[in-house]
């Protein structure tokens, strides 16, 4: 197939004269309305600033950014104590992944090689928060689990618990595995420490993140109201070698 023909095909598309006139007319109308509206902008702005000062908003977070929600998100890699609680803001935060342990487990199973198993966890800090729901646009949340030999030979239990990739240290009776939690889970605010769910992100076969991934963080407050923020997970070209992912608020 000659892909160069795509250009001829697409550039052969043209707006009709009627459509072109319609577009111009609509733009002109919107633009003239804009001119009148613009006269009020300085007055409205001054009034808004005055009002904001009077009621004490907007307020800014520690990084000097306008806080868009009443909760903050931090991320950290379980393997790296030095990186504890990196704040997620609109600036890209790079999190180094602990590869040693993970690659060992992945290598032993050989299965589900389409995911990069990170050890990155998220935590929410805020007030009057009841629960938090995380949803991944692509990929899974996973949990490291350990179990006994009896469980190891119980294939039905392993399947029902969605446990993949198993291994054990030589001479040990304790088996290690990765449990698939799913692409979403909800956790109570006060019980966040009990859930060590980490991110597993799809890759293209060469440990390069196939597509940008969005993590939606939906926070429900004790008064019934809720707020949400999206986190964009990316990977820089040069991060394949150093093995890291970047997170930032979308």
């Amino acid at each position, binding site marked *: *197939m000659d*892909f*160069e*023909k*795509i*250009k*001829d*095909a*697409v*550039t*052969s*598309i*043209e*707006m*009709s004269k009627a*459509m*072109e006139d*319609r*577009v*111009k007319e*609509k*733009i*002109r109308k*919107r*633009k*003239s309305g*804009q*001119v009148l509206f613009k006269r009020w902008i300085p007055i409205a702005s001054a009034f808004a600033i005055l009002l904001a000062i009077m009621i004490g908003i907007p307020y800014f977070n520690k990084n000097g950014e306008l806080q868009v929600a009443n909760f903050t998100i931090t991320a950290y890699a379980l393997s790296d104590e030095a990186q504890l609680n990196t704040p997620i803001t609109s600036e890209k935060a790079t999190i180094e992944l602990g590869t040693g342990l993970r690659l060992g487990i992945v290598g032993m199973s050989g299965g589900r090689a389409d995911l990069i198993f990170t050890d990155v966890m998220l935590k929410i800090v805020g007030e009057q928060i009841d629960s938090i729901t995380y949803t991944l646009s692509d990929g899974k949340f996973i949990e490291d689990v350990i179990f006994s030999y009896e469980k190891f030979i119980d294939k039905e239990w392993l399947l029902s618990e969605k446990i993949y990739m198993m291994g054990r240290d030589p001479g040990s009776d304790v088996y290690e595995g990765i449990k698939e939690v799913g692409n979403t889970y909800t956790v109570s605010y006060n019980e966040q420490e009990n859930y060590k769910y980490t991110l597993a992100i799809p890759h*293209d076969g060469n440990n*390069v*993140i*196939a*597509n*940008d991934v969005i993590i939606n963080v939906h926070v429900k407050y004790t008064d019934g109201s809720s707020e949400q923020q999206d986190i964009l997970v*990316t*990977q*820089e*070209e040069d991060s394949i070698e150093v093995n890291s992912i970047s997170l930032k608020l979308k």
Partner: protein
Amino acid sequence: MLQQVVWSDELDVERIVDTYGNMLFSICLVILCNEKDAEDAVQDTFITYLTKSPSFNDSEHEKAWLITIATNRCKNMRRYNIIRKHIDINDLQLYSKNDKNHGLLDHLMRLPTKQKIVLLLHYVEGYKVDEIAKILTITTSAVKKRLQRGRELLRERYRKENEYGL
């Protein structure tokens, strides 16, 4: 003074619609597969342009900016399901005079949005992989992946068409 402002706006509307109207419409029509939605997306793009009045280094910069706004608008329209029904292949003659192109356009329109956009930017607008990555704010590897997948899908659809004699 006011007369001058109005006159200048008038010239600007004429210039951008004449220069970029067809290019943006073709991109939006292929992405959205509906002429009304494509018209709305083009119109919104131009309104954003005139409202924000951004400054550009050159005409290439201006074109890339307009494409970014238009493709984002299209993606949002698709995301929130506010698009209308898929254009009928027979209606393509209203917008593309050469009927030899209709089969390819129909195949292109039926591709997933992600792949469609990178194919358009690469093969139609002639952008390189790193330039597309900047326009779409994705990684170069993601662009390569989408290009590859888009080509595979198009090949596959042509193969099936020939196989079944459709």
